[in-house]
C-alpha cells in the first residue's frame, strides 16, 4: 500500500479515535459523526453478506445500536473501524443463523444478470454494458454459492481492502488462518465462477 494511503488511513483512525472517545464520554454528536463516517461501509458489507437491501438496512442500524451500547467497553488500542466490523460481522452471522440459511439466497435467482435492487429495465442495453452486468451477475452468484465464512473473508479482503492483520482482528483468528482461509475462498469462488460461466474466467484451458 502506498505511503499516502497509510497516511490517510492513519488520519482516519485518529479522527475515529477522537470521536469514539468523545462518544464514550456521552457526546451524541460525536457518535452521529461515527455513524456517518462508517455507515456506507458497514451497509455494503452487510448487504453483500445477506443479499437483501431491507435486511441490510435494518442490520446496519442494529450494528450501530449495538456499537453504542458496547462503546463503554471499547479501548483506543482497538481500531474503531475494526471493532465496528466485528460487531457488524457478528450481527450478520446471527441473522444468517436466525434465517436458518444454509445456502445464500441470491439477490435475484431468476435474473442472474440483473444488478441487485434495480427495477427491471426493458430498454435494450448497449452490448458492452450487458456483458458487464452478466459478469457482475456471475460473480454475485459465485459469491452467493460460498459458505458465509468464505464469503465474508473475500468481502473483507477484496471489497474492504483490509490487510491480513485487520481481517484477523475482525474475525478473531490468527493471520495464518486468514491466509489459508482466504486462499480456499478464492479457489472455491473460482471453481463456482467457472461452473456458472462454463469456462475459465481467463482463456487458459483447464
Amino acid at each position, binding site marked *: 500500500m502506498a505511503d499516502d494511503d497509510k497516511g490517510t488511513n492513519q488520519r482516519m483512525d485518529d479522527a475515529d479515535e477522537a470521536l469514539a472517545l468523545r462518544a464514550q464520554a456521552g457526546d451524541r454528536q460525536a457518535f452521529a459523526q461515527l455513524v456517518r463516517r462508517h455507515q456506507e461501509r458497514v451497509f455494503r458489507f452487510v448487504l453483500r453478506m445477506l443479499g437483501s437491501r431491507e435486511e441490510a438496512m435494518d442490520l446496519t442500524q442494529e450494528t450501530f445500536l449495538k456499537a453504542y451500547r458496547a462503546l463503554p467497553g471499547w479501548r483506543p488500542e482497538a481500531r474503531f473501524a475494526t471493532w465496528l466490523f466485528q460487531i457488524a460481522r457478528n450481527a450478520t452471522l446471527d441473522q444468517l443463523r436466525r434465517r436458518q440459511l444454509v445456502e445464500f439466497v441470491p439477490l435475484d435467482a431468476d435474473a442472474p444478470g440483473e444488478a441487485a435492487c434495480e427495477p427491471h429495465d426493458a430498454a435494450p442495453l448497449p452490448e458492452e454494458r450487458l456483458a458487464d452486468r452478466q459478469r457482475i451477475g456471475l460473480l454475485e452468484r459465485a459469491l452467493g454459492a460460498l459458505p458465509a465464512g468464505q464469503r465474508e473473508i473475500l468481502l473483507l479482503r*477484496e471489497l474492504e481492502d483490509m490487510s491480513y492483520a485487520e481481517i484477523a482482528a475482525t474475525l478473531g483468528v490468527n493471520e495464518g488462518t486468514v491466509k489459508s482461509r482466504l486462499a480456499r475462498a478464492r479457489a472455491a469462488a473460482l471453481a463456482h465462477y467457472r461452473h456458472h460461466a462454463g469456462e475459465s*474466467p481467463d482463456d*487458459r484451458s483447464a
Partner: protein
Amino acid sequence: MTDPHEVHASDSDLSAYLDAELDAAARCRVENHLAACPRCAARLADFRHLAAEFARLPRESLGCDLAGVIAGRLAEEARPRPRVHASGWRGLLPLGFGAAASVALGIAMGAVLFGGGAALPRMAAMSVFDPIPPGGLCPGLDACYARGADMTGAFK
C-alpha cells in the same frame, strides 16, 4: 532447493503473494518459482483476475443518512416515555412498514437530538405519518426503499 517443477507454490502462498502479505524470503521463493512454472503463474493470474472482477462490482449505497435514525432509536430506548406513544403508533402500521416508519421516526427524533431542538415526543411520533422528513435530513429516503414508493402514500 528442489527443482521448482517438482513442488508447486501453494494456493495460500500465491494468494498471499497477490496481497503482498508474504515476508521477503517467502516472496522471493514464490517469485523464483513463478518465473519457471507456467502452471503456478496461471493460477496466480486466476486469483488476480478474480480480484479484478471484485473491483468491478457496483458499490451499493445506503442512499440516506442513518445518523438521525440511530439517534432516534437510542433516545427511544433511553427515555421513559408515556406508554401511549410507545406502542400506539407501531400497532397502527401494516406489517413491513416498521423499518420505513422507524427511519421516519428516527429522522424526526434525530432532528430533535442532533438539531438541538426541544420538541415533544408527541410531535416526533406524529411526524411519522408525514411522508416528508422534517428538516430534510434524509433526502435519499426514497432511495432507501426504492420499491416502496407506493408505501409512502400509505402514511397519509
